């Protein structure tokens, strides 16, 4: 590593603001596209990299390969018809879309949901967080050449999907949260099977932690990679584990408590190192926390009772004029829905604030500079981004 540093002082020359001076005509740089079809990129987006040797001199992110126009589509759908749509905005973690949009329209229409529905929603969201983390950890390890972890975590994620299937009827798109509440109660014997699944998660996590965090290869590549300065947190709109790893205790569950989180016992996990390794380590702790929270929820929640408020006719439900912003803490941080209604049967404007927007677009461009091209995939995964939510 020291060899590389020898040339750093001389080349490339710097602008007064510290950015690299890049002249492609000099033939000392090469431009490479990573993505939009690249296994190292999470989802369909592209990095336009300018390399010098194998070091990234400049990174430009490109999105637009996955644009499906959800926000616009929703303006032409009745409120109830938006629910099969919104879940598709963040594929591995669809329930936050359903919750945020449902909570928005409930707030605007002045509907109070039953207690059981609140508990059910909290459970679904926490299960969704756990499932999403399990998918991510496979990607994170895979990006650094540890394919085996992805196999383990996907197996236990599949067990979690089985739990979703018996609870909601759907594996990937649950479509379980509707305005007014949820679509059902826990099936018989669900707690027992959930506990079994949680145990298998813990067993797998023991293996995963040992394989990843006490691993010389992983340490060599992840330690010191993509360090986020706490000062950037507000500057770049960094949220969730990325901010918490930088020592900023941002957590919507604590900062703006919603649903039944105030009744659950947990602390915000923070770290200080703020590199890819620390972020991975912090998220592994979050998985343990999620398991604990699901246990707490199943122990505390009522198993019967009203789960859906008495609703007006969904076919021509009109919501009074208003606007609101509803947020929730998903695996990547603050997930928000800004909803505007105009008194008609259709949302006037919906803006989805996916946390990946700031992480994958602006922050990635900054962090990729001076990093090795082989590490861009690991760096991006360590920011935990899902391009579908960038392009709503």
């Amino acid at each position, binding site marked *: 590593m020291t060899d590389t540093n020898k040339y750093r002082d001389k080349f490339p020359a710097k602008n007064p603001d510290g950015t690299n001076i890049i002249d492609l005509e000099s033939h000392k740089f090469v431009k490479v596209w990573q993505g939009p079809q690249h296994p190292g990129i999470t989802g369909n987006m592209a990095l336009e990299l300018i390399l010098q040797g194998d070091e990234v001199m400049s990174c430009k992110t490109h999105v637009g390969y996955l644009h499906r126009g959800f926000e616009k589509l929703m303006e032409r*759908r*009745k409120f*109830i*018809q*938006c*629910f*099969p*749509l919104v879940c598709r905005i963040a594929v591995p973690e669809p329930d936050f879309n359903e919750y945020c949009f449902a909570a928005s329209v409930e707030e605007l229409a002045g509907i109070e949901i039953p207690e059981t529905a609140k508990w059910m929603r909290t459970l679904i969201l926490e299960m969704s967080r756990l499932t999403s983390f399990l998918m991510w950890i496979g990607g994170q390890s895979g990006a650094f050449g*540890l394919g*085996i972890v992805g196999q*383990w975590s996907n*197996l236990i994620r*599949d*067990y979690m999907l*089985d739990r979703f*299937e*018996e*609870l*909601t*009827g*759907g594996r990937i*798109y649950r*479509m379980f949260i509707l305005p007014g*509440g949820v*679509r*059902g*109660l826990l*099936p018989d014997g669900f707690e027992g099977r959930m506990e079994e699944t949680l145990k298998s998660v813990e067993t797998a996590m023991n*293996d995963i932690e*040992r*394989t990843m965090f*006490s*691993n*010389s*290869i992983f*340490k*060599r590549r992840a330690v010191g990679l993509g360090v986020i300065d706490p000062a950037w947190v507000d500057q770049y709109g960094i949220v969730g584990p990325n901010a918490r790893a930088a020592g900023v205790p941002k957590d919507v569950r604590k900062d703006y408590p919603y649903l039944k989180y105030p009744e659950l016992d947990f602390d915000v996990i923070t770290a200080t190192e703020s590199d890819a390794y620390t972020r991975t380590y912090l998220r592994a702790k979050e998985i343990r926390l999620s398991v604990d929270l699901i246990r707490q929820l199943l122990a505390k929640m009522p198993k019967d009772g*009203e*789960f*859906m408020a*008495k*609703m*007006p*006719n*969904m*076919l*021509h439900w009109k919501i009074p004029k208003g606007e609101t912003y509803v947020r929730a803490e998903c695996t990547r941080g603050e997930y928000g829905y800004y909803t505007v209604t105009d008194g008609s049967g259709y949302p006037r404007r919906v803006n989805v604030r996916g946390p990946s927007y700031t992480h994958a677009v602006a922050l990635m461009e900054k962090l990729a500079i001076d990093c090795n091209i082989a590490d861009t995939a690991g760096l991006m995964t360590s920011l935990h981004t899902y391009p579908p939510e960038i392009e709503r």
Partner: protein
Amino acid sequence: MSFKDVLSPFLAWKNLVKQPGTIKKPLEREGADRYRGFHQNDMKKCIGCGTCEAICQNAAIDMVPVEGQETTDGDSGLRPMIDYGRCCWCALCVDICPTGSLTMSNEFKWIDSDPDVFRFVPGAEDKSWDKDEKGYRKPDNYELYPTGRVHMEELKPEDRDKSFIEIVKGYSKEQAIKEADRCVECGLCIATCPAHMGIPQYIAAVRNDNMEEGLRILYETNPLPEICGRVCTHNCETVCAMQYKGDPLSIRWLKRYIADQVPIEKYKEILGADGFEQQDKKVAIIGAGPGGLSAAYYLANLGYQVKVFEAMAQAGGMTRYGIPEYRLPYDQLDKDVEYIKQLGVEMQFNTRIGKDITLDQLHKDYDAVFAATGLHDGRSTRVAGADHPMVFQAIDLLRDVTEGKKITVAEKVVVIGGGNVAMDIARTMARLQNQKYGKVQLILTSLEAEDIMPADVEEIVESREENVVIEPAWGPKDIKIEGDKLKGLNVIRCLSVFDKDGHFNPRFDNKESNFFEADQIVEAIGQGMDIKYMSEGLENKLEMTERNRVKVSTFSQSSLLWLFVGGDITGGTDAITAIADGHRAAKGIDKYLNRET
């Protein structure tokens, strides 16, 4: 970096001896109990309302005709066809299905090389999962719409049993909007309504609080909304899709709500009644009942000069002279009639065709004639003693009450009949008894058992609330008379009213008999018609049907071409059918009179 960091990853090798988690035979894996798999549809339960199609945001559902499914009242005959190229298995169609016929099985494997087969009608095509018990069902205690009817405020029995004040108070704005919100706009009601009124459209107008639009929609097919909003037989409500989820919509009360909201002064402006192109052709209408008034309205709108001849002193026909005031107040009836008069329709009262003017004379003076004279002759049971002076015809008594005459009311009364006329006279007599004697002693007896009584259910309930004793399933045997005095009615048990083919053919059990004490008996077992005026003094004879009714075309045109006939005398049973007849006749007359041009 330590020695441990180099070695510990090798612990992963212990997984080599673990059982793999992969399912070995994925095709045998069963979906969870709630799994949202392939659709099932119970074809017998499905009514083809299309609510599933309405909620599907992917437009994956199309309502299509299916072989073997007939279009009937309350069933469109269409069934949902689902395109699995579009379906996203959100199951909102299952949740919103009013009948609960649409469900999902937990089957999720379907392999075929032909992509077209994945567009299919569940239930109509034999699928392996059709009988699956497992799969997604809408959970109880959760609906995507309110299921209960908004309660209609009514006068309490003790407040109404002495007076003729209207019982039903009508909806407030909030109540009406709440009730209108329940409509799923399936349109089954439109098909069933004899006048094919735009019911979902005017309900939408109530929901949007747009009374002017509502009134316009009402008058497109029905110029008597105040009358129909109160006394319509509401066949529409019997087919309403929401009845499977609780109560059908109060369609009749919503119609009344619209008509009540708009003052008559605004009618002309809202309905755009000014500036019709006037025609120089004249049309005579016989009878100012619902049929005649309806024809008069639509003909006036087409610019014809219309004159209505009415035997009684006021317009309304049976709705005025048959229906008591507590169901249809005369001022509301007058509102509908008044608007028709405002359009320039001339009305000549106290003129009976056949007596004061002949039909032939009308033929000479007018270009076309529409006759809707109704059924005004009460039928007798013709049992022994039915000719006693204390045996009355319901229809005569009701007419006398309307005209303000004092009618005979005895202390003990028996009413024979199970229809709405019987209920009307029973409840009228009960009120008069209450006024005169301070108590009600009235027995209503009908051939039909209570479940098949032709009267509306609410009539039966409200009669009982007004202390009318109902004795169903008895056939009148004879009337007991001692000396000159009427003593009561002997009845025998009626076992069934209709035979296997559905014809009227009552069977009695002579062993079981009963006696109802009475000073006065009122017969309300149906009415006959008097259409002698149609056969006297005409050059050509009218063609009649086998049931001795005037034979008419779909436009109510008789074999005499210039004569159009409609309403109860051609087989209608209620006001809304007569209104539809009048509308059709107006179209027929327009076609007939303008055939040269």
